[in-house]
């Protein structure tokens, strides 16, 4: 059976690494619905995929700012009329602007919650309303959502909420046989990590490809045997 995979934050980091993992494997995932803001890195990534497509897979890029809820609602309707279904959803996009309590701009807090929490919720709810039955939903949270860290209030709060939202999704969507998986990567060499820890040498920590490998395992038949209520992925 031909399956579709939707990935948010697909232009770089864990999202792009996961796409490459599924894209370069001879598997039943044939359609890649990729969401990211318009950027040079997204264009470069799309060029890279079309230049090396050994299994003839189809890529459907969509430029979107996931803080824009109204656009998500519209896009999900378009996706369903174009593809008819989304089998696997990887809610990966993340945003952060770390600062101390006294310095948090409320609009920035709203953007963090918008991208990290409301966007995955809206995508799932809109696709359910359209009659989509997911096989698997993977929500990418963070170890920062399990333990608060000074300076990371908005990010930690958003990821803590994503972890508990995933638990609810897992229970409520069981009526459809949908598996909902939440992973919490620790330090991983992404652009977001550079924002959180600008002085760290990224070559010394976990790479996006490692997390992508775990996501691929969770999507496999083996994945159903892993208790992934909140699976910590760290070095």
């Amino acid at each position, binding site marked *: 059976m031909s399956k579709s995979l939707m990935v948010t934050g697909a232009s770089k980091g864990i999202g792009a690494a996961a796409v490459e993992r599924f894209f370069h494997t001879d598997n039943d995932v044939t359609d890649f619905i990729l969401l990211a803001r318009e950027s040079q890195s997204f264009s470069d990534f799309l060029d890279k995929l079309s230049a090396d497509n050994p299994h003839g897979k189809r890529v459907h890029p969509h430029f979107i700012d996931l803080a824009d809820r109204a656009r998500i609602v519209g896009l999900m309707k378009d996706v369903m009329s174009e593809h008819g279904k989304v089998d696997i959803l990887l809610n990966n996009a993340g945003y952060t602007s770390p600062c101390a309590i006294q310095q948090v701009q409320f609009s920035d807090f709203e953007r963090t919650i918008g991208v990290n929490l409301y966007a995955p919720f809206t995508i799932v709810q809109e696709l*359910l*309303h*359209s*009659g*989509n039955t997911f096989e698997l939903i993977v929500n990418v949270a963070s170890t920062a959502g399990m333990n608060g860290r000074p300076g990371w209030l908005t990010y930690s709060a958003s990821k803590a909420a994503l972890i508990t939202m995933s638990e*609810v999704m897992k*229970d*409520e969507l*069981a*009526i*459809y046989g949908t598996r909902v998986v939440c992973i919490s990567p620790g330090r991983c060499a992404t652009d977001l990590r550079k924002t959180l820890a600008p002085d760290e040498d990224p070559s010394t920590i976990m790479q996006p490809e490692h997390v992508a490998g775990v996501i691929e395992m969770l999507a496999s038949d083996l994945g159903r045997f892993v208790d992934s209520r909140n699976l910590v992925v760290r070095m």
Partner: protein
Amino acid sequence: MYSLVLLNGGIGSRVAAGQPKQFIHVNGLPIIVYSLVAADAVDEIDEIVLNYPEGWREDTEKLVIDYAVKTPVTYVVAGASRHESVSLMLPRCKNERVIVHETARPLVGADDFRRIVADPHDNVSFMLPIPFTVAPVEPESAKVTGWLDRGKLRNVQLPQKFRKADLIAAHEYAEREGVEFTEDATLVAVAGSEVYFLDGEDRNFKVTTPTDVRLAGFLLGGEDDDE
């Protein structure tokens, strides 16, 4: 193909806590959702006839829309009794064969509907053996009047399936004779059609008390998988 007559009532008023009893939540979801989603996954059911309490059509429709139920749903206002509800719903069924279920049994699964569809008989009900002893009594005098062989008794469950003509004839019989039945399998049998039973599951029980709501929530929350 089958029409599903989905009775959306029959939960004891003690569990309703001020809201229409059809909308109580079990394991976090409105109780009606479980039967709708299970039936929606069954290819042989191509129509759902659903009743609603007077004044609650919009709320019922919204649930069907929110859960993106793909099988076409026909809405019928609830009657004063279960008998009357079924009588009002049957003429709205387009198919010659109907399945009767009630939303108060949220532990029904798509496979239960498939099993009853696959049974070769026309009129079939899920039923359970009775694991305890039942005595016939005279309530007024508190006198025990004899005994019943429990091996020849069954606990009647739902879903059930019928030829629509047999079920309609049975309801006409009940009206003619002035008798009330609390479910349709025994009614159809007493009215003269053959009815058979399939062994059901004890987990497919009817939620009627607050304890039942908690028990159903526990069972729906997943089996105990610890060693």
